[in-house]
């Protein structure tokens, strides 16, 4: 195991962070506005979000760079379309200002939004975009890289391989929200299949994020634990989103969310956090839950 990961995991499961999008929206990010651009235009607000999680107890926080690959940036305003290196560098620097020495910065790499199977992009174009982003994040001083919210194992494999070119530890996290039991990705692969593919691609940590709520995550975690010896990364949503009077609302409370933590730990989770709809309050509840169960 990479020494950074071994150190983190030495004293039990590690609290990661929660959602950034909803936190930025609470600070004025408009509907349809590209969150990563705020690294350039509103770095102070992005730093507030990062600090919020550090103060809530996150020992690992991510970066506001989920969409900052060349392919997704090309869809944005021409003012930011070419600024891959800058957006990623600023993202890492902002998170680092928030963590200081208190927490680690695991930089976020999200999907390109294109489907390889439809020929939207070639594998080479996709690899190049992920490599460019990964290198920029590493050069800015990220402690590790998180390839997250992946719905297509073929894309995830390319992203992991690209991330590994930096020499940093790499987390690979998939979205399981299809199939009768919400245990398949959109493309139909299972946790067992993905564990093999991702380990082969060089992932140091394997896991799941987003999805349809934390209850499903315990089973996914158990199945990953049975399929791999690598540390496991779990970041569930606070339930399913609802549109209530034009605002997005997630129904799961921090307390309900944290109730699942002991089961996740028992199922083998090493890194526990939240995805869409979660907030520093959720992370405080998770941290408290972990502190209780370690006594």
């Amino acid at each position, binding site marked *: 195991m990479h020494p950074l990961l071994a150190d983190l995991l030495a004293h039990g499961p590690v609290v990661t962070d929660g959602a950034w999008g909803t936190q930025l*929206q609470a600070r004025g990010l408009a*509907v*349809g506005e590209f969150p990563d651009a705020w690294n350039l235009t509103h770095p102070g607000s992005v730093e507030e979000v990062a600090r919020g999680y550090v103060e809530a107890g996150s020992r690992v926080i991510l970066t506001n760079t989920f969409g900052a690959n060349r392919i997704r940036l090309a*869809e944005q305003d021409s003012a930011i379309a070419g600024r891959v290196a800058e957006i990623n560098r600023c993202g890492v620097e902002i998170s680092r200002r928030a963590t200081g020495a208190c927490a680690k910065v695991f930089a976020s790499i999200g999907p390109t*939004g294109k*489907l390889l*199977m*439809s020929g939207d992009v070639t594998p080479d174009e996709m690899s190049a975009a992920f490599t460019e982003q990964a290198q920029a994040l590493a050069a800015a001083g990220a402690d590790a890289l998180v390839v997250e919210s992946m719905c297509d194992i073929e894309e995830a494999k390319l992203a992991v391989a690209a991330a590994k070119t930096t020499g940093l530890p790499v987390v690979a996290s998939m979205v399981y929200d*299809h*199939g*009768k039991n919400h245990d*398949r990705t*959109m*493309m*139909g692969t299972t946790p067992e299949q993905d564990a093999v593919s991702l380990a082969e691609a060089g992932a140091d940590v394997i896991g799941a994020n987003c999805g349809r709520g934390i209850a499903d995550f315990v089973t996914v975690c158990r199945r990953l634990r049975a399929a791999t010896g690598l540390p496991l990364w779990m970041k569930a949503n606070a339930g*399913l*989103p*609802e*549109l209530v009077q*034009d605002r*997005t609302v997630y129904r799961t409370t921090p307390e309900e969310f944290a109730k699942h933590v002991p089961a996740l730990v028992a199922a083998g989770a090493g890194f526990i956090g939240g995805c869409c709809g979660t907030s520093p309050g959720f992370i405080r509840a998770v941290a408290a839950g972990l502190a209780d169960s370690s006594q």
Partner: protein
Amino acid sequence: MQDVKPLYEAVLRGDAAAARAITEQALAAGIEPIRVVNDYMVPAMDEVGRRFECNEYFVPELLLAARAMKGALELVRPLLVKSGIKPLGKVVVGTVRGDLHDIGKNLVSAMLEGGGFEVIDLGVNVSPEKFIEAVKSKNANIVALSALLTTTMPAMKLTIDAFKTAGMRDQVKIFVGGAPVTQKFADDIGADGYSENAPGVVGLAKLHTGAAA
């Protein structure tokens, strides 16, 4: 007697080469083009949709089958046009304003084309005005709206309202879909239909255009 049954299997399996080859042979043997489509291709796509809804097929199987159907249909279409047979309907498809996600929308387009509809795909971040303009210029009778974010769902209501304001609401059937969209939301905003997944849109479209289900 030409055996066209393997065409059904070829589309179901997503075997584009076999689907084309069998279709070529069937047409050369004088089988009526509309029979090739309605008796073999369409039932195959219906079965693909059913398997997807039963969680037996996933996106890759859908894409392969739609591709096989589309390739075979390319051989048949000129003959259908020549004999005056039109597509089942014209569907304007797009992801609503503010939303750049297109995978779901692309699946819907593929399934509708495979299902015998003509598709006008407007892409992503499509304004209500652009939907209206496309319906007018292409004489479309169906509009399919996609959104992947709860925050862009309100644009679906704006689009429907824009059709009302333009006095065109009764000319089209408007369907909505996307991960956060629900039947309740569709009812609340006055949509004509909601589908939980891409194959379901084909059934909706057939229902509302009076085509045989």
